[in-house]
Every structure is written in structure tokens, then in C-alpha cells.
């Protein structure tokens, strides 16, 4: 059980100028499952490896339970890690792999066997204990890698895209098992993924990284409903938020032919802003086809049963823009239809160049 703190921690790889992780400030609570998410190359693995002790921290520090571990070697951090390719020891059996860390701690053979067996029961690996990793399926290997981590009961679990080598179906079921296991064991966990769906479904809180910079750390719900900037708005959510560029006309923004109604705080920020180009962000479910002032031309309909996502073009800013609208599954719309739409829910406004959000995010 432990808390983890990144205190303005940076990593600058030798021979590069831009930090791979730039002054990361992050507090992770005891027993929390924090997900680090971001596009490939955003510094997720680097951040994780800094906590593991596998990567040097060039600036700032890292604390576990208020103990500064910035210069502590990985062996002495009491952290277990699950690697993307599992990194199982090929010369050892499943039991040998799982018991390796205990052996290093000098745990007796009987005790080791007992604890390996316990972990194997949890992970359904009892019948494979004598096999070598190369004789296991991908899913079994993944479980062995998990087993190797949980046998130790470490202070912190680290997982770097542990599900990315599994097929889609197994990935989803393993995801649920992992969340359940983490909750049962209550071990502070940092989980890295590039998949925002995985992040949203698993994380107690999610930290979004881009170009080594922390964009926002929040609960999945707030990340969705109150993205702190344009990057988070575009990254979180599937299908993605509609992001429509608009030039200001005085202190107003137009969506198609209509003026976007803005809350007072956004209005105030817009007045104060010196930017000329903005981005209007509207989630698909916050556009309605229940009649309205905007004409749209339907191009693609994605039926999901309970509802449908309609891709349509609208006239906006002197050209065609494609938007996605979520509609009720009962309504029938088809390609070429004319669908009148209107805004029916919160609108997020960002400065186009800085990506800054206008207005205080809703609670």
C-alpha cells in the first residue's frame, strides 16, 4: 500500500533536446488505479519507467509514500511491473517465473511454492505451473506476467500496455478481470495504454499525456464532460467530439448559420481573448435531429441497434464540414436524406492555436 508522487519529474534522453517527459506533476493515491493515456510517443512508457527506476530522472523527483526514490535502484523500490511483451524468463517454468522475485528475497522454498500456488489459483494457472513460457498461449503468458507481479504483494504495480498483444475479445474480458483483481488486492497501480477506451473503462483516474506534457488528470467522467483543452477534447471519446473551427465575428461564434449560445463565463473569456480562431466542440449526443435551424446532408449511417451515429455534412464557414450526430435507434435516416439538426447540450469552446479552454469547466 503506497502513494506515488511525481514531483516535476523530467526525462531528457541523451542526445535529444526535448524532454520525453516534461515536468510531470502527479499524485497517485493509495490503492488507486491510475491510467496514463496518450498517443504513441507521448512519453507514457518513459514516465512509467521513471517510477520503476529503469529510466534516469533528469529533473525533479519521484516519491513513494513520501520516501524520495529518485536515485533508488529498481531492485529496492518494491515495485512490480508487467511488460508489454511480458518478458517471461524463457529458461524457467511458469512456477519459476512467478517465484523468481521471492527467491531473490530469500523466501524459503515451501513458502515460495505456497504463494505461487495461491497466485496461480487466482489467475487460473495451476495446471501450467511446470510449463515453459514458449508452450503457453498469449493469454496464458499474459496471466503469468500478472502472476509474477502479484506473487510479491509489492507496494506498486506498473503495467505497460499489458493487453496490447491479446486479440480483441480476450482483451475486453481480461480488462475486466484486471480491474477486479486490482480492486481485490488494493495495490496502487499505474497502467499505461494508448487506447482511450481502455483508459476510460479501467481508470479510477486518467492522466492524459501529449508530447511529454500532462494535459489533464481527472476521473473518466470529468475527462469526458469537461476536457481541459482541445487535445483532451479530441482524444477522449469514441466517436470523437465534433471539433469545428470558427472565426469570431465580434464576440460571437457561428455554427453553420446559427449563433452558438454561450454561457456567461465563456462569453467573458471570449471577450477577453485576443485570438481570432476558435474551435467549437460538441459531442455527437449533444446534437439533436429533433428539428432545428441547421440543414445537414446525411452521408453515412452507423447503426448500433440502441442508437445510431449519423455522419452528415453541414454548410459552415463557407464550406462543407462533416459532423457526427447520435440519434435514437428507432429513427430511420438514410444516405442522401436532409436532416435538420440543432445543438442540444453543452458546447466546449477552445482557442484554435493554444488549445485553451474558454470558461470554467462545468462541475
Amino acid at each position, binding site marked *: 500500500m503506497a502513494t506515488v508522487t511525481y514531483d516535476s519529474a523530467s526525462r531528457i534522453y541523451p542526445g535529444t533536446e526535448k524532454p520525453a517527459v516534461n515536468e510531470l506533476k502527479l499524485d497517485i493515491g493509495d490503492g488507486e488505479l491510475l491510467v496514463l493515456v496518450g498517443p504513441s510517443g507521448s512519453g507514457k512508457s518513459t514516465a512509467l519507467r521513471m517510477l*520503476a*527506476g*529503469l529510466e534516469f530522472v533528469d529533473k525533479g523527483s519521484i516519491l513513494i509514500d513520501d520516501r524520495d526514490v529518485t536515485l533508488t*535502484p*529498481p*531492485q*529496492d523500490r518494491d*515495485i*512490480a*511491473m508487467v*511488460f508489454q*511483451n511480458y*518478458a*517471461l*524468463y*524463457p*529458461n*524457467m517454468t511458469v512456477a519459476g517465473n512467478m517465484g*523468481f*522475485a521471492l527467491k*531473490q*528475497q530469500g523466501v524459503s522454498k515451501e513458502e515460495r511454492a505456497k504463494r505461487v500456488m495461491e497466485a496461480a489459483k487466482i489467475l487460473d494457472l495451476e495446471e501450467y505451473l511446470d510449463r*515453459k513460457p*514458449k508452450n503457453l498461449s498469449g493469454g496464458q503468458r499474459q496471466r503469468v506476467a500478472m502472476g*509474477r507481479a502479484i506473487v*510479491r504483494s509489492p507496494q506498486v504495480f506498473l503495467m505497460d500496455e499489458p493487453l496490447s498483444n491479446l486479440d480483441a475479445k480476450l482483451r475486453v474480458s481480461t480488462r475486466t478481470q484486471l480491474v477486479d483483481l486490482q480492486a481485490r488486492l488494493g495495490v496502487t497501480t499505474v497502467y499505461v495504454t494508448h487506447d482511450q477506451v481502455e483508459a476510460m473503462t479501467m481508470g479510477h483516474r486518467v492522466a492524459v499525456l501529449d508530447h511529454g506534457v500532462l494535459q489533464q488528470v481527472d476521473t473518466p467522467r470529468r475527462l469526458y464532460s469537461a476536457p481541459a483543452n482541445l487535445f483532451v477534447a479530441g482524444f477522449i471519446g469514441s466517436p470523437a467530439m465534433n471539433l469545428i473551427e470558427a472565426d469570431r465575428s465580434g464576440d460571437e461564434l457561428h455554427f453553420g448559420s446559427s449563433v452558438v449560445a454561450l454561457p456567461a463565463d465563456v462569453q467573458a473569456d471570449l471577450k477577453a481573448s485576443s485570438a481570432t480562431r476558435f474551435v467549437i466542440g460538441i459531442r455527437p449526443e449533444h446534437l439533436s435531429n429533433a428539428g432545428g435551424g441547421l440543414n445537414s446532408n446525411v452521408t453515412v449511417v452507423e447503426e448500433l441497434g440502441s442508437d445510431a451515429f449519423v455522419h452528415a455534412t453541414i454548410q459552415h464557414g463557407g464550406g462543407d464540414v462533416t459532423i457526427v450526430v447520435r440519434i435514437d435507434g428507432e429513427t430511420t435516416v438514410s444516405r442522401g436524406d436532409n436532416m435538420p439538426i440543432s445543438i442540444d447540450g453543452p458546447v466546449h469552446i477552445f482557442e484554435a492555436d493554444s488549445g485553451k479552454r474558454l470558461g470554467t469547466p462545468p462541475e
Partner: protein
Amino acid sequence: MASSTTGPVVGENKVSGFIFGVIAWIVGLMFFFPIFWLVLNSFKTEEAANGDPVLFFTPTLEQYREVTASSTGLLSFGEAFFNSAWVVVVSTIIVMVLAIPAAYSLAIRPVEKWRDVLFFFISTKFLPIAAAILPLWILARDLGLLNTRLVLIILYTALNLPLAVWMLRSFFAEVPRELIEASQMDGASLMSQIRSVILPIVSPGIAATALLSFIFAWNEFFLAVQLNPVDGSTVPIWVTTAVTTRGLFLAKLSAASTLATLPVVLAGWAAQKRMIRGLALGAIK
């Protein structure tokens, strides 16, 4: 390993596979035939060996008896064999003891300018040994090392070390980085990482390297004849001195050569078992 035998069963592939198979067998037999003939000859009488080639004959151990029988004043088989074994085993052990840590540090924790270091190692092999023999001889004489086993141990170690470091470095470089990191996370000390994780994976490479070092040293003739032609002489020298070239000698020479080859074959067989076992682990793809 299973991938080499079966491909997609398409007519054309089958045919070309068959042709390649035949070519491989022919080339293999071409390499093997002289050795086969050598061994065959060693069991013949001198008359049979020097007469018309025949495949069927009454085998005799006469030649083996003759070449291993010690005659006074000449290097005996037992002596030569012992000297060779001593020089080769000791030098190979030293080579491995030095090369393994060097390869580890070059591959897994590369020092700055490790490429230059590696190049330096191999550059010591640029000089033809014939060009170095005079200074080597003078040095050995001044140090009182002429005609000792020690001088051969030193030189064989020096000769094989660069190659061993090169070979081992590439084997160590194949160890997946994550495995070492995983063992660090598991709390393994440096010694434990090396013993439990790295060595089992590179052991086929170690076996191959040790075998090569063994073979080079076992077969080395030039330095042995220049620096140590008397006491402590090795098997290659015995082969040339044990067989008198007066009269018929082909069968005797075959017997001596077969005896000289045997330890290399045994070492190869032992190393191969180790190598295959390591490859079967599947860590090195």
C-alpha cells in the same frame, strides 16, 4: 526450427525444395568424403591404402598401434596429447573468463565509444602472424618461455580473445532488454541477473564460442612449430613427426590424423548438444 522443413505445398516449391535438398547433400558429401576416406585408410594396411582404392577390406588396428607406440627420442602420442589438452583447455578457459565479462559490458551496459573498443579488439588480428613471429620469438626467448607450454597458452589466449569477444558480444546483444529489466524489478542483483537470466540465454553462444576457440587452438601449427618444437609440443606437431616419410606411410598418416581430429569431433558434439538445447528455449529468435 520446424520452419525449415515444411513450406506451403505448392508443386513448384516442392520441386525446388527437392533440388536444393540434393545440392545440399552433394556439397555435404563433398566435404565429408575426404574425412571418410581418411578414416577408412587408417584401418587399412599400408599396402591396401596405397594400392587401388577399395571400399571393402579387412580392417586392422596395426597403424594405430604403430603411431601410438613411443620410440625414444621422438615426441610420443601420450605426451603430445597431454600437452595439447593442457594448452587448449587452459587457454580456452582463460579466453572465456575474459571474454564473457567483456561481451557483457559491451552489449548490455555499453561503455562510451564501445564501437571503437570493439574495433580495437579486431584490429589486433590485422597483422599476419608470420609478420609477428620474429618479435614474438625474441620476446619468448628473453623471457625464457621458448619450448614451454606457457608460451602457447599465452599466445592462443591472445589469438582467440578478440574473436571470442566479438562473437559473444553479438550473442549478449540478443538478450531482450526487457528480460534484464524484469529481473531488476524482481529484485535480482547483478550476479543473479547474469546467472539466472542472461547466461541461460547466451549459453548456446558461449558453447559455440568456446568450441571455436578450442578448435583454433587445437589445430594451431605455425606458432607451435616456431616457439615450441621440443618439450611441450602439441598434437599437430606429433602428426608430422610421428610418421616417418620413408617407405609407405599413407595409412599411418591417416591413423595419426584421425587421432588428432577425434578430440575436436568430441568437443563439437558436446557443444552442439548444448547449442541445440539453448536454441530450443526459443528466447533468441
